């Protein structure tokens, strides 16, 4: 199963779900919001001498385990237990930290070769860098950046977006920008899926939460193919996504 984890307002996750679902047999693609995870019927995460496992059963009956997932698109960045907000602020903060700690561990336990993107200790969606840090990393990787570094935190919207996915570039690269430098930025932060933002040919920012719809069929094809290439790790049920098998 391809699993998309997202927040309720994530229109790009919904777009991705609809496009993948259209290209796939029934029940082979699922989209799960953070709220469904919050109200899951059963959550079980175990660490034993032999294994690290999880079992999540949602209220709609959908069951998630490591063995049933062929690919995970992780667009979670924070688990907010809103139901705890009203009763008590201290308990809300405690529950919030506990749930984020739990999902960090569960996401980390997923096979990294099937996960876009792995979480980091400080952010469920991956490395959480400021625009100044992205630009510094870009500069060190060979990209041109604006002259007024460090930038203010609020960046103007980019005029070009380029997606790096598994080292492949989707979208139109601005003139003079090195594709290898873009790949290197993604590689350095350990994120197989990263959107790079440019103003002119200058690199201004990056995000692991891209505007997926901009990459259309090329992205869908890549994800469906990704479920078939080099992914047989001994779990026969995960060898191939049915649409691409």
């Amino acid at each position: 199963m391809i699993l998309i984890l997202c927040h309720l307002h994530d229109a790009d996750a919904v777009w991705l779900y609809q496009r993948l679902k259209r290209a796939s047999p029934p029940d082979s693609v699922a989209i799960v919001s953070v709220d469904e995870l919050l109200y899951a019927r059963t959550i079980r995460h175990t660490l034993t001498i032999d294994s690290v496992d999880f079992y999540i059963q949602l209220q709609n009956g959908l069951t998630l385990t490591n063995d049933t997932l062929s690919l995970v698109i992780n667009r979670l960045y924070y688990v907010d237990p809103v139901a705890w907000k009203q009763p008590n602020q201290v308990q809300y903060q405690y529950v919030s930290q506990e749930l984020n700690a739990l999902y960090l561990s569960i996401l980390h336990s997923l096979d990294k070769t099937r996960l876009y993107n792995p979480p980091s200790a400080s952010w469920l969606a991956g490395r959480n860098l400021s625009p100044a840090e992205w630009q510094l990393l870009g500069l060190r990787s060979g990209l041109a950046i604006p002259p007024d570094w460090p930038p203010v935190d609020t960046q103007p919207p980019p005029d070009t977006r380029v997606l790096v996915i598994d080292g492949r570039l989707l979208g139109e690269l601005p003139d003079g920008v090195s594709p290898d430098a873009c790949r290197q930025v993604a590689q350095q932060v350990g994120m197989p899926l990263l959107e790079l933002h440019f103003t002119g040919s200058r690199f201004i920012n990056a995000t692991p939460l891209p505007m997926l719809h901009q990459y259309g069929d090329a992205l869908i094809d890549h994800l469906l193919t990704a479920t078939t290439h080099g992914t047989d790790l001994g779990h026969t049920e995960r060898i191939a996504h049915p649409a691409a098998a």
Partner: protein
Amino acid sequence: MVLIWGIPSESPIQRLLDELDTLEQPYLAVSQRHFADTDIQLTVDSSGTLGGTLTYQQQTYPLDSITGLYLRLTDDETLPEFKQLSPDDPLRSHARQLVQHLTLWADWSGVRIVNRMAAMASNNSKPYQAQFIRQCGFRTPDTLITNEPADVIAFCRQHDDRVIYKSISGVRSIVQTWQANGDADKLALVRHCPVQFQQQVDGFDVRVHVIGELCLATRITAHATDYRYALQQTGESATLTPYELDDELASRCVDLSRALDLAFSGIDLRIAPDGTVYCFEVNPCPAYTYYESHTNQPIAARLAEYLSGHDNYYRRVWQL
């Protein structure tokens, strides 16, 4: 020069400053409370090398004169000077930007640092950290995190009702023994928020402080479930004594600290009667003075040597 940033009255910082004095190493201690008198200006050259200046109480220092950095930051919101600011006071954004620039420089300049802010976050999730611990060859106690009461009952049965529970996150919690009968009424509460249960492991506790590639270990003898609260749990204080690690175990501790990108860490071990070494967690910002004051182990001295790149540190690593 070594830069120390935090609350200078805290004992880990005080002890470090004492030892830097003893080594006659230059340092600058920046009080986080004096954020209004502190500023960092950052620059970058065309190759991506960071530079800039630190201004503190009217003195300006080039950042490239700083070779070692010790961070022990507290949340701005807890600082009295910050709390008294009105919501729209520009000093609030100044204080935040200051920490952002400090973090950026600390993480990307290549300075010898204890510890990177991003690395310290691993302690925010015990099971996440446990996955690194396992990769470094340590046992971790069987662990169950669940919102399902039946799972808890089965786990307790599996471990003969010798189970503890504690927070999943880095929130400080007192480790408690789960009482199968007495705590039965609490069981339904796990439905509201998953709880972490762990197999109770027999043995004695060892705290290992890893400093770069060196280890200083302390044995803790206590009858309490959580030795930090031994007095309140058992009426008796814990006893702390220096402990000698064998080379293989010391090497694994250094590997674990490195795997978590921590130059300085406090690793909590329990040595079982059969010699199996369990690791509970790794503290990325250890309040080491508790162990030092009970044993006279030279933790602050080793830390000062490491941060200043002193010859003594390398002599000890290379056993010269």
